[in-house]
């Protein structure tokens, strides 16, 4: 069977690109909602900011695991 099409080069880059879509959208939603909350009720900015950072850490971990997985699966 002849080869019809082929991807050459490192597929890890494609893997990371796909892995970054979800966390990108997630971070956008998270930070956007936190900003919205801070705009509606400025006196709880401190609480919202702390919880936003916790959320950012958890979501960004997924994108970073995607980055690292590319290096592990060589």
């Amino acid at each position, binding site marked *: 069977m002849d080869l019809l099409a082929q991807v050459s080069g490192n597929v890890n880059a494609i893997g990371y690109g796909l892995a970054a879509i979800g966390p990108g959208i997630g971070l956008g939603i998270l930070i956007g909602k936190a900003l919205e909350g801070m705009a509606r009720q400025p006196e709880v900015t401190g609480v919202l900011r702390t919880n936003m950072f916790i959320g950012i*850490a958890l979501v960004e971990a997924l994108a970073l695991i995607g*980055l690292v997985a590319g290096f592990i699966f060589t």
Partner: protein
Amino acid sequence: MTLITFAPTQVLAGLSAAEGNGFHPPTLSEFFPGQLFGAGTWWGPSRINLIGLLMAGLLALFFVSAFRKPGVVPGRLQMLGEMGVTFVRSQIIDEVIGKQGRRFLPYLVTLFFMVFVLNIAGVLPTLNMAGTAVIGVPMFLAGVSWLVFNVVGVQTHGLGGYLRNNLFPPGVPKPLYLLLTPIEAISTFVLRPVTLTIRLMANMMAGHLMLVLFFAASSYLLFEAQPALKPLGVAAVAMGFAFTLFEILVAGLQAYIFTLLTALYIGGAMSEAH
């Protein structure tokens, strides 16, 4: 001006960056430089280990000299040290655990400043490598945090009570426990230290790779490429400068997040089941 600061560091740091003959983008071997002495032994330090030791030594020196003779009216160093400790106490512990978390202040201050100082070594001109960019230090710190929150949980609730609170959260229909308990077990006891480790290490590794890429690219484009590409070299220098500022932000942010999550886990282990 940034080129004058950073181009010599390319030479000094012995990176695989462009030194003539072509463009050498960074590879993973950046993070495995050879052992500087004691080659082949288990203790032989590489450049990265020595950077970690140096930054930890400087940090210890700072805190010891800041709090050596504390006066009621603080001197300058003592004021800086107090600002650091107050930041961790008011922004991290009080927000997340509350007043009863104050007994973890020594550990959390140490954790925050150790991570921050090791991270910031990634942008210092002659060091150029974060001590936390290889897996050892983040894994150790995450392991210690894991020990702390588990021991605190067992001390507060007893082993059976602690496991019951975490693995069998109340208010769930009985058959769902078959599905929920393994997920909770892995999420609490395995994923927490693993994600703490990987989050810190991957942030620092990615930041270092991007910085090396920008500086290698600017050195190559400005000095060795065809003249038509020189404006791209200027753009690469600008990106390197901007990204260095971003890396400083990420260094502080990752230290804050590591400490905040550790405090959160400790608070969760201490709190009553809801």
